[in-house]
């Protein structure tokens, strides 16, 4: 069984290494992520639209506010689930 697991790990790792050959180089400005029109749009407009210098925060808290609200809800739900399952004493 351990041989089988090792084989599975090696197979998955080999596939990842093989697929990794096709990734664009780090910081390559011709890669698809940098060529997309939204990238230029965010870099040029996010400071005027959101008032913060940090584009990552502008995306996280403003453009993708729904997503971050969902993430916070996930953390809250996880905490409540742990309280329901583990709390042994009276509330």
């Amino acid at each position, binding site marked *: 069984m351990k041989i089988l697991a090792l084989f599975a790990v090696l197979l998955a790792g080999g596939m990842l290494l093989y697929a990794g050959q096709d990734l664009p180089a780090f910081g390559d400005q011709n890669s698809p992520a940098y060529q997309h029109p939204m990238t230029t749009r965010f870099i040029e407009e996010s400071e005027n639209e*959101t008032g913060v210098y940090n584009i990552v925060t502008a995306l996280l808290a403003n453009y993708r506010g729904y997503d971050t609200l969902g993430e916070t809800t996930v953390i809250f739900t996880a905490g409540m689930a742990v*309280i329901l399952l583990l709390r042994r004493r009276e509330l």
Partner: protein
Amino acid sequence: MSGIQESIIIRTVVRIMVPFIALFALYVIIHGASGPGGGFQGGVIFGAAIILYAMIYGIEDGKKIISDKVNRILSSTGLVLYAGTGLLCMVFGGKFLQYNAVPLFPNPAETAAILMDVVEVGIGITVLAVMVSLFFDISPPETEDDEMFPEEVEQ
């Protein structure tokens, strides 16, 4: 009380460090708009400060800082702060979480930056309360003797 909790060095260092860790957490939350950081990271750092205190000074002393009841209230307060900011934007005629609809400042971008800080603080409060609550819930009940792993009490 295990050995590490009796060490005077560790107790003193923790007592000095905890306020600075908490201050750094607030810095990380507020600085999130202009540098690396944000509500998740700052909340975790603040939670770590309280957990560090509770590890050394005991769970009971930790619960004097932030009791179970306060914990439950805080963990939902952060989420309400976030969703409430979104609803506030709807009150002023914008879409949900459309920050620049709120007429707080003449410059809409400035309003958006302020409301994003409010949202980050909300995230931080929720993460802090959930982290501390997880630690308190999975920590074993304290015993009188020095045993690290007390045997199960007969039911």
